[in-house]
């Protein structure tokens, strides 16, 4: 959560902006960039984060184990005497490797680690600012208490004698370990301290513009040419175009972009309903694809024009 002022700008901007796909889900949040533009983000799922951590953890273990093996070889081969200092050195190294592995990668790789990259996750600043080295160090230092300490305690079983002490220790460690399960944003204690959160890497490919065709090279827009769509077959009245709002327009966009096997049937069904709603006769034979495309284009032209004049008609129930 960012500070209150930011939160309110974000939500008012959110209300002005159209709601993109996937928003309204439990993991959707807004951040404001330093340039003042509000961007939607998707929080990383707890399960994905757990898997990412396990991957990183295995890598850390592998590095420490490899180091241990290498040193063991050196001791056996070179007769450097005593395994005493070997154990000490491995302890030392494992402390530094596990403490700074995460911080190192999050600093070098813009908030990702190998495990996070595999899972498509990333650490960012909760308030929308740059991710500072302090924040990275803070969130990763906390891991020692959140995860590594509990693991050591659980493995070694050193709780301290009495039953109540054991229970208190387990309870205390559980508070830290399971913190992400107890808040909406899935923050672990390290995230709270550092003011960060973990988000999913955004995906989104640019597809063809349904209203214009994709083949309009820059600079010749507006010029008549072969790239322009053919003359429309249908003429829609204003009344017909006003049967729907933005929500329906964007649902229709989804239907037109649908490439699943049964997409043609869906389009036929949708075309039938729209024709019934706006009172348009079926031509013979009906060309649903073309009807929907032209209706989409005409409706988008109408709604976008009204938007320029300050009327953003949300859906068909919005009587504006």
């Amino acid at each position, binding site marked *: 959560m960012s500070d*209150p002022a930011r939160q309110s700008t974000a939500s008012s901007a959110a209300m002005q902006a159209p709601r993109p796909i996937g928003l309204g889900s439990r993991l959707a949040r807004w951040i404001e960039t330093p340039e003042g533009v509000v961007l939607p983000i998707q929080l990383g799922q707890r399960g994905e984060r757990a898997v990412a951590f396990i991957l990183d953890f295995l890598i850390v273990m592998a590095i420490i184990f490899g180091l241990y093996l290498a040193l063991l070889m050196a001791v056996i081969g070179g007769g450097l005497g005593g395994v005493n200092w070997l154990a000490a050195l491995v302890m030392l190294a494992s402390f530094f490797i596990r403490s700074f592995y995460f911080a190192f990668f999050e600093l*070098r790789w813009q908030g990702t680690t190998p495990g996070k990259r595999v899972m498509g996750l990333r650490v960012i*600043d909760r308030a929308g600012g740059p991710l500072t080295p302090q924040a990275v*160090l*803070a969130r990763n230092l906390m891991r020692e208490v959140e995860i590594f300490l509990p693991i050591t305690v659980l493995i070694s079983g050193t709780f301290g004698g009495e039953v109540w002490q054991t229970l208190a220790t387990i309870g205390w460690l559980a508070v830290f370990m399971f913190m992400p399960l107890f808040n909406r944003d899935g923050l672990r204690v390290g995230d709270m301290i550092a003011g960060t959160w973990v988000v999913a890497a955004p995906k989104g490919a640019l597809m063809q513009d349904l209203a214009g065709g994709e083949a309009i090279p820059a600079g010749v*827009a507006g010029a008549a040419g072969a790239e322009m769509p053919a003359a429309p077959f249908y003429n829609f*009245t*204003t009344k017909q175009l006003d049967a729907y709002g933005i929500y329906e327009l964007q649902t229709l966009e989804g239907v037109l972009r649908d490439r699943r096997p049964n997409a043609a049937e869906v389009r036929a069904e949708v075309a039938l309903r729209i024709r019934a709603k706006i009172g348009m006769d079926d031509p013979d034979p009906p060309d649903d694809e073309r009807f929907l495309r032209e209706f989409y*284009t005409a409706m988008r032209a109408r709604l976008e024009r009204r938007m320029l004049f300050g009327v953003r008609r949300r859906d068909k129930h919005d009587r504006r």
Partner: protein
Amino acid sequence: MAIVHRAAAETETGRAPAASAGPATAAHSGAPGFTLKSTAFRAEREPAWRRLEALIARAESSGLASLEARELLRLPILYRAVLSSLSVARAISLDRNLLTYLESLSSRAYFLIYGGRSNALSAIGQFLGATLPKAVRAARWYIALAALCLALGGVVGYVLTVGNLDWFYTFVSEGSAGGRTPTADTETLRRPLYTDGRGFAERLTAFASFLFTHNARIGIMAFALGFALGAPTVLLLFFNGLTLGAFVALYVSRGLGVELAGWLLIHGVTEMTAIVLCGAAGLMLGRAVIFPGEYTRLQNLARAGRGAAVIVIGAVLMFFVAGLLEGFGRQLILETESRFLVAGVTGVLWALYFVRAGRGRR
């Protein structure tokens, strides 16, 4: 923007929406050559988006370092161009795919540009040269309070144990006493202060085990426990003070006070400063939770947490130095006077570092 206005002039023939709601013959999908403003806008801006997309894709797969200097310079320019495209698109376009694409492209570029600095070495230099001493100076009252807790524990432990040596068993666990109890004779107590003849391996083991099992862990715990309203931090500091006070009382009662001081202080100046710093960091967290002020608790925790974490990292480094002094220095330097000298020098150096370093630099 120019093309958008031109397109606007072509398609928008001055008809207000109110007027168009009149006779029901409007031909919005008009004649051939008709282009939506949002379509024209996209055609005009798309090449820049594609350029940024290609740059980002490369940076994401093989790192920012794989971009040439020229491309790196273009990255923020293209990023701002795409952000502005997004703002325009939100105002004029209803193409959901376009908006989603621009949002995800902006986010990806934002993550790259604001995703932290890539030069770890200069980050470390900046950290040691300015960030750490500044954070320590900013926390001076917390440090004073933490030091007070530790000192109070020490005084209470000392006074009680000097009065009645039985208190020693209450304050010092059997494990950490290691046979150095009031029942032991003076020679048994004295010997560990001057143990020598241990080899390199033992010193390193001692160093590593002291560093991990005890010091750094206590320090980090003192910090992390501050999350629970700071109370455990205060208690931890106080109890450590008690233990220390009890030990000192025991040795003083045998007339070994000065020798113990030399043995303790050679690394203790560094180590106790570090423990106090960790405690101060814990108190900062506790205060952030208890008195959030004008922020929510979570926001305030984030504000205090970064500064506190800086201090703890500094303290962990100090524990490292303390471990070296404890593992090597104390075994090699056996004269009490020299031990006091080392203690004094480290004390002065730390004080100079925290008071002077990074002043006047932004």
